[in-house]
């Protein structure tokens, strides 16, 4: 008797949705072992990690606030990932979005019109797209790998922001801290829920996720992107341009990440700082895959990932655990997800040797 992997006749639809749940369950088991090993009561730790952060209205607001940039970035990345366009640099595109949106806020610091905020959002999207256009251009022109180029550009973007807030854009009355002036009220996203920090950026994120669904599921261009990802030869056969696919995939990812960047600086931060994101652009990669590259799934996965961020903070305070625990949970989740995904295309089978042949041998 042996156990072996056998490929399924066709991918299991059930497994493709069960796999994220399995991964969450396995992550919780690892958490249980981990907390026990650290000498914490696992049940209490779970409570602190997953329940306490969202016990009150403020907590719910924080959950949605942090989920917004995650779902924004993830839905844009998913549009590309479905077409095998691997944009890993959403963090950099988010940063460029923050720079461009923030730049508008600073340039029109004394303006009072309602046009400032929309202009910031447009500028942020444009900035993210411009940053994503670099790997897209290098990929279509020189066949440079977009994974590497987009990833490396993250560090360029972060250092560029750092240069600005340490230099040209530093607040002259800011006691030499590396930060810009606080934005004016017209450059800030209005509050959505009293007694929380939740702002209308959340509604904007929802609208983008819904448009993402429209694009991916209902438009011909979205369909063609999916074909390009599933069967490049079929795409070429049908005359779907591989270059156009790369450009659309990268630019959508860049635009949504750029908007997420504006959401951060015009939302909870309210100014430009050397760092405007705790790694939302990278976490969004996990969100995109946990959400099965589907906008609804991405919405749910962004809530989960947001909860991991909040739980990590809560665990630092209540349990004196290091902040690395957030990253650990994120990594474990992705690890188990990739493992569980194997079962979409394969099944375990216990093989009994055929009796007659075995007897004859």
């Amino acid at each position, binding site marked *: 008797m042996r156990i072996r992997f*056998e490929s*399924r*006749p*066709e*991918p299991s639809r059930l497994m493709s949705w069960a796999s994220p749940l399995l991964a969450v369950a396995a992550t919780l088991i690892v958490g249980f072992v981990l907390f026990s090993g650290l000498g914490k009561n696992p049940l209490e730790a779970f409570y602190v990690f997953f329940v306490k952060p969202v016990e009150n209205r403020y907590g719910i607001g924080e959950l949605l606030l942090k989920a917004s940039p995650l779902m924004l970035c993830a839905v844009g990345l998913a549009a590309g990932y479905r077409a095998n366009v691997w944009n890993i640099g959403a963090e950099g595109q988010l940063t460029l979005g923050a720079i461009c949106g923030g730049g508008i806020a600073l340039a029109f610091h004394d303006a009072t019109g309602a046009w400032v905020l929309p202009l910031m959002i447009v500028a942020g999207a444009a900035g993210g797209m411009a940053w994503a256009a670099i790997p897209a251009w290098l990929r279509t022109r020189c066949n440079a790998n977009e994974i590497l180029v987009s990833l490396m550009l993250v560090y360029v973007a972060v250092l560029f922001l750092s240069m600005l807030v340490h230099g040209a854009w530093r607040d002259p009355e800011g006691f030499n801290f590396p930060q810009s002036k606080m934005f004016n009220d017209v450059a800030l996203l209005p509050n959505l829920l009293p007694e929380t920090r939740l702002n209308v950026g959340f509604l904007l994120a929802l609208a983008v996720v819904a448009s993402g669904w*429209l694009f991916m599921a*209902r*438009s*011909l*261009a979205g*369909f063609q992107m*999916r*074909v390009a990802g*599933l*069967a490049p*030869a*079929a795409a*070429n*056969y*049908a*005359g*779907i*341009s591989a270059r156009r696919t790369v450009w659309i995939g990268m630019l959508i990812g860049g635009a949504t990440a750029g908007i997420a960047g504006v959401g951060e600086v015009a939302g909870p931060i309210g100014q430009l700082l050397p760092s405007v994101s705790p790694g939302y652009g990278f976490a969004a990669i996990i969100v995109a895959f946990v959400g099965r590259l589907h906008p609804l799934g991405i919405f749910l996965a962004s809530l989960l990932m947001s909860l991991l961020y909040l739980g990590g903070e809560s665990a630092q305070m209540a349990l004196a655990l290091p902040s690395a625990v957030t990253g650990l949970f994120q990594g474990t989740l992705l690890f188990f997800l990739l493992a569980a995904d194997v079962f979409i295309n394969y*099944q375990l089978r216990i093989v009994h040797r*055929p*009796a*007659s*042949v*075995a007897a*004859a*041998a």
Partner: protein
Amino acid sequence: MDTPAPRLQLTGISKTYPSVVANADVDLTVLPGEIHAVLGENGAGKSTLMKIIYGVVEPDAGTIRWNGDAVTIDNPAKARALGIGMVFQHFSLFETLTVAENIELALDAGAVDARLDARIREVSERYGLPLDPRRHIYSMSVGERQRVEIARCLLQEPRLLIMDEPTSVLTPQAVGRLFETLRRLAAEGCSILYISHKLDEIRALCQKATVLRSGRVTGTCDPRQESSSGLARMMIGGDLPHPRHREARTRGDGALVVRNLSLPADDPFGTDLLDIELDVRGGEIVGIAGISGNGQNELMAALSGERTLDVADTIVLNGEPVGRLDAARRRTLGLAFVPEERLGRGAVPEMSLADNALLTAHRQAMTRRGFIRFEAVRAYAQATIARFKVKAPGPAAVARSLSGGNLQKFIVGREILQGPRVMIAAQPTWGVDVGAAAQIRQALIDLRDEGVAVLVVSEELDELFEICDRLAVIARGRLSAPTPTRMTNAEAIGLLMSGSFIVGDDGGAHAARLERLGAH
């Protein structure tokens, strides 16, 4: 003992895959020195059975006896040790290595010595398979490559040789030579299992035939005593349909005109196209014969627009120069194309038939302001399924779940329903069962009768003679001038397939140059 024990005896062999029963209770007996045909349509379970014999696949049930003794064949090395050799339909040769190096790689350790070159020469000459051990594979024709595969088996002195669809890549002349070799081998006592769906060949070569249908043995017979239609009835369980064919009525000028098309291959082992000239008029079917790998893929990519050209005038479609246009824009001008590969090129395997209809037919009012009209897509897919008798649960069925023949009918139907003015089909019935193949040919003939210009590329000469009005041959990237079908025959086409029409042929000089560059 009066009669010798059978060389190979299978009893009750069964193999079930998750979605399909490949073999059910198969019995097969092969005597020493017998040329035994295993006959069946694609998907009848021939290949699985051969893989079981060669130790690649493990049966779920059943016994295998070799010269009378029960054996378990776990892996191909075990099969080779017993004396079983197999020549696969798709060769496994390294193109950048020489004949001798390729053979050396396949031999089990210990069998290799310094005399290998001499042994290769000796074996290949004894069986009429002339081979130069030092030649590189990439410079060899498909027929020559097959010789390497056969020689590789023969060096291990097999007592049973399995040939999987060996003639699908050969010219009629090369088929004759192969049969000579196989008869000589059999005369020396080597048994041969000959897998094919070509009835004429089996009747010419084999002494016995086992017929498979849907994984089961439906009969054994002496094929020399049977008519082709008798064998076909056993194979498909019904009579072979015959196409209706009307007189050609060509209309107007060339709907598809190719002038002076030369195109270097984009793959190091591809074929460069040289000075291709071609006219296909509305209302006729022009066929391109040739052994695969002689530039068919490159020509199809250039005609379909999957590869665009630098000069627009090279290809003219309904009077429009389209050389620089991509596949999508050529489709808007009335081109339809059925590619050789169904899964992954003609259709997206993971997608539904409806989505696969949308793939190329979205110009048929399937979108409104960039958004998909799903009702129109489903209706189109449903119409294709109904009109071309595709066996599928419905438009939501995933392309991969269809059999090869049914998917091909769907793809051909999808292209035809777009009302093309020029239709190009590459290997339209390759790997398709007999019934579906007849239907596809009929659909192409009907299209011609409606005045569409049809171009068919095929390796099956019978098919081309059956449906085409004019025939051309592609060899080494060059295209012969088309001849009216009734003014030529298989022999003449076979001669052209070896490249005889190429004037000032530099193929030999090219090969010689490669030789000098080699490891001499």
